């Protein structure tokens, strides 16, 4: 699309000259204008007809307002970060950013993933997306908390698991996430958890990760706690407790008790005090408080002196890069680097995994509801041609295998998937679709490449060895043993 927009003169020259770094733009424009990036050349790779791609590029570039919305189908690839940067390039090149009705809008995978990111849940950042190596920011926290902070980044989940297996990462506190079922390459996750000295799982239910927990802390639902959730348009919204938590404590109280038990003097009385601390230490949240959220309903950060009522639109008169958030837009050259996960004679099909409407993620919550009537098990979708070539019929038990592992599930023969591609969900622990997915991940973020796994599908007459072993482990892990009594098998 960028090739067409640049070569057909559809760029917004006024926006680029006013808002973007011109040298970086020229460099990027020369790169995308190269004939090797034309729709005709790339048709063989993308399978998108060149005419359709040209039409899409012209439509996007010439519309009065054009917005890009994208989901996990963009990010869960080894090139996910490159694609996000390529999307930002397109928006800047056509002036479709920084005003109402346009922009780049990621549709996040969970209700509060935006809030978690905002609060520095990345291993290299403090709240407000400030790198831990930034001395001034770090000192602000050190003075407020009375501690010394390590200026180096921490580990991401896959690297934590590898470090656990190597013996240098020994304990983990997992809150509201079921990494055994949701992360890629389940055997690697299981080996990492099993190698740790202390695994604490804090969740609503005994999820699959809890099978490896040394300690389980019961969580509270959104109806049992106060706080905020932040949605993908940076809108901070109140969450209000409507009933006392059945376990006796809200999640933040459990975490605070754990900190106190480890000798830290945490002494918050209410989440509003935690928000006051966030506002004190995070410039983009400086004007946020529970009192304001109560009075105004919601606020979109940044909320501070420069934007006292919040910021419905980002990048209005500058980009975050540079001093005072008024920098010039940066065009980044993003070449297509194919994944190393390749189909071949042993694994000739491409598996992509995803979610369906009636089940949420690993299903820890939704499998316990009547939604399971709509989706009682994970099934494998396969094109009729591929099914016929393998002598497989609708509803058959099949073995889904990759170089990492195998599982069994029922077949759904459907034209919803293209020939050569199979699709399944990861909602059910009996299937554990991530036994099959690989260690490959995005080059910059290490987001697992859930959308690309080379697989083979063959007839099956029962569960795989992994499923049998895991079923036994799961039953053992959930036994309730009364102190002093003989454990029952």
């Amino acid at each position, binding site marked *: 699309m960028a090739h067409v927009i640049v070569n057909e003169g559809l760029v917004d020259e006024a926006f680029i000259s006013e808002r973007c770094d011109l040298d970086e733009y020229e460099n990027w424009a020369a790169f995308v204008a190269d004939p090797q990036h034309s729709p005709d050349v790339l048709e063989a790779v993308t399978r998108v007809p060149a005419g359709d791609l040209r039409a899409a590029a012209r439509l996007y570039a010439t519309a009065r307002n054009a917005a890009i919305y994208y989901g996990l189908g963009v990010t869960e690839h080894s090139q996910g970060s490159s694609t996000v940067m390529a999307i930002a390039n397109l928006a800047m090149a056509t002036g479709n950013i920084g005003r109402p009705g346009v922009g780049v809008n990621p549709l996040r995978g969970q209700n509060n993933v935006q809030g978690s990111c905002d609060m520095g849940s990345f291993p290299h950042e403090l709240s407000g997306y400030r790198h831990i190596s930034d001395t001034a920011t770090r000192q602000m926290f050190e003075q407020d908390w009375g501690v010394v902070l390590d200026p180096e*980044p921490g580990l991401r989940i896959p690297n934590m698991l*590898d470090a656990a297996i190597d013996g240098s990462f020994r304990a983990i506190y997992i809150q509201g996430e079921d990494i055994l079922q949701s992360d890629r390459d389940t055997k690697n996750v299981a080996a990492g958890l099993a190698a740790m000295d202390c695994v604490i799982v804090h969740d609503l239910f005994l999820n699959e990760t809890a099978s490896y927990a040394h300690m389980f802390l019961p969580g509270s639902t959104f109806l049992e706690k106060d706080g905020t959730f932040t949605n993908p348009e940076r809108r901070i919204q109140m969450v209000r407790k409507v009933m006392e938590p059945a376990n006796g404590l809200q999640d933040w109280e459990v975490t605070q008790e754990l900190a106190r038990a480890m000798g830290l003097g945490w002494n918050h009385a209410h989440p509003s005090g935690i928000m006051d601390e966030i506002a004190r230490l995070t410039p983009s949240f400086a004007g946020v408080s529970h009192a304001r959220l109560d009075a105004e309903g919601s606020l979109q950060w940044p909320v501070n002196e420069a934007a006292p009522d919040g910021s419905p639109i980002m990048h209005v008169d500058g980009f975050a890069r540079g001093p005072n958030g008024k920098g010039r837009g940066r065009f980044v050259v993003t070449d297509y680097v194919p994944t190393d996960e390749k189909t071949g004679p042993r694994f000739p099909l491409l598996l992509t995994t995803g979610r369906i409407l009636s089940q949420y993620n690993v299903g820890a919550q939704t499998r316990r509801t009547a939604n399971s009537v709509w989706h009682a098990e994970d099934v494998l979708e396969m094109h009729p041609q591929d099914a016929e070539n393998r002598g497989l019929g609708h509803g058959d038990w099949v073995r889904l295998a990759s170089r990492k592992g195998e599982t069994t599930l029922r077949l759904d023969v459907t034209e919803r998937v293209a020939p050569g591609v199979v699709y399944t969900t990861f909602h059910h622990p009996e299937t554990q679709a991530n036994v099959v997915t690989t260690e490959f991940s995005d080059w910059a973020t290490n987001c697992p490449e859930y959308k690309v796994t080379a697989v083979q599908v063959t007839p099956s007459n029962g569960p795989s060895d992994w499923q049998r072993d895991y079923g036994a482990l799961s039953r053992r892990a959930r036994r309730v043993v009364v102190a002093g009594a003989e454990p029952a098998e």
Partner: protein
Amino acid sequence: MSAAGTGERLRYMADQIARNFAAMGEDEAIAATAEHIALFWDPRMKAAILADDPAHLSPIAAAAIARLAATRT
């Protein structure tokens, strides 16, 4: 995965970062790869890749690691 396995993983990660910056041109790609590893890798990962034999790495990744080593001395 054994320590050797983790070593291979880190080499793969460094090479993958370098490949994705390669279109920027060699000098910029080396600088960007070194900066990325400095900003996003945990100290034990940095120590492991710095101690590794650069012959196992692609030329851009090897040059980035050499640059990283030079900034740490």
